[in-house]
């Protein structure tokens, strides 16, 4: 069940001894660049940098990477196709009738659609870099330092823990149900799925109760200890991140917005 969580590969990538703050900072920086970049060419460069950092530097298997990158593709393609139709401007490239509604594809609409696809691609590549190289557990201390209230960091840590408890429980119940052909018909599927959800919630509730007991036994005073920031920030990692970020920043600043070829 947990094989499709990106958390798994974040624990064993080649950049795991790089400071989590640096990786988060670089990833967020690339996302902001992707939002700000006016030129499609700069977006392609940001996308390539994100892919290069993740597949090249962090050595995430490319097949796995492509499968994850396909996750948002459906939403992006549908939304961008709608934008192409909704936005009109410039020369009409093609037009057709769909159920008595005239649909025209214009230069302006096509440019917006393609730019949106590139922009989302660049943003997703930056997001995947953070997701696939930075284990969540190393970000809690960063979150606390950034001013997130302690009670929320505690809550986030407990949610993190229970996600894996619940996924295990759900996988067990799902196996048991599937082996009894519970998902054969739609009606039965809805029933079986609700029983699964109910059972998983109740069992998680029980283990939450037990967790409180265990925490009490260990003198829980309403505060969980945070892992200290490890690994530390190293000069050569900062230089490496700058070597990726600064050229892209320059490209975004100097590359003027222009039409697609």
């Amino acid at each position: 069940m947990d094989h499709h969580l990106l958390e798994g590969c974040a624990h064993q990538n080649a950049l795991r001894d790089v400071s989590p703050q640096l990786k988060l900072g670089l990833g967020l920086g690339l996302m902001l660049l992707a939002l700000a970049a006016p030129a499609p060419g700069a977006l392609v460069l940001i996308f390539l940098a994100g892919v290069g950092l993740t597949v090249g530097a962090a050595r995430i298997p490319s097949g796995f990477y492509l499968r994850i990158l396909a996750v948002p593709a459906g939403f992006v393609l549908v939304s961008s196709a709608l934008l192409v139709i909704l936005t009109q401007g410039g020369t009409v490239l093609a037009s057709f009738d769909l159920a008595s509604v005239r649909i025209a594809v214009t230069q302006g609409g096509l440019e917006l659609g393609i730019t949106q696809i590139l922009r989302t691609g660049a943003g997703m590549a930056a997001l995947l870099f953070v997701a696939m190289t930075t284990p969540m557990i190393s970000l809690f201390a960063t979150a606390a330092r950034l001013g997130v209230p302690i009670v929320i960091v505690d809550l986030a840590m407990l949610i993190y823990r229970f996600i894996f408890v619940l996924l295990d429980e759900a996988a067990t119940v799902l196996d048991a149900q599937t082996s009894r052909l519970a998902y054969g018909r739609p009606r039965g599927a809805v029933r079986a799925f609700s029983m699964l959800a109910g059972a998983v919630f109740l069992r998680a509730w029980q283990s939450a109760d037990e967790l409180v007991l265990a925490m009490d036994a260990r003198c829980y005073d309403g505060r969980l200890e945070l892992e200290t920031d490890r690994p530390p920030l190293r000069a050569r990692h900062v230089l490496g991140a700058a070597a990726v970020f600064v050229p892209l920043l320059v490209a975004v600043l100097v590359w003027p917005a222009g039409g697609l070829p």
Partner: protein
Amino acid sequence: MHIMEGFLPPFWAALWFALALPVIAYGVVRIRRLVGEDRELLPLLAVSGAFIFVLSSLKLPSVTGSSSHPTGTGAGAVLFGPAVTSVLATIVLVYQALFLAHGGFTTLGANVFSMGIAGPAAGYAIYRICMRARVGCCTAVFATAAVADIATYLTTSTQLALAFPATTGGVTASFLTFAGIFALTQVPLAIVEGLVIALVFRYMIAIRGDVLERLHVLRREVPAP
């Protein structure tokens, strides 16, 4: 349904952050007070947050195509109220971005507003109306979950329409197009999620009614089946 990283222009990304932050801050204050009164609530809140995450990462077997999944925030609104649910949804959305590549950071504000604030608030309003009208518990929960889902997807459509108005017809035409296309998956999904959450509640009342009593869901004189 979430807006993916990079899809919203900077102005709109920032605006939705600005609108979502006060609600999250209020939710944090409420959580702090709740946990201060009864610290056993912290693990319970955590289980509910994890539950929202797991529910949304399990695809419903009967619904095919698209990245559609139940949001689970309707249930959260019934259990804890909309403000606390918005905080849970924020944490869950960060995890969905980091664990499933679903959503994003710059679009987090917009997604929190649709899934964590608009959806639960609409669902909670319906829940209160149902309670006042003395509708049965399962019907009330069904309505809450379905309305929370539909409100979430309509808010997302509005966000997309505001950011990308149509050349002819403006925001309205754009909204109708987005809402119309997404309705194909979201409306059946809302009905299925409503059914599922209602059955979950019935199941939980039958097996462990005391759990819901502690959450004060049953205290409002809901007739247990």
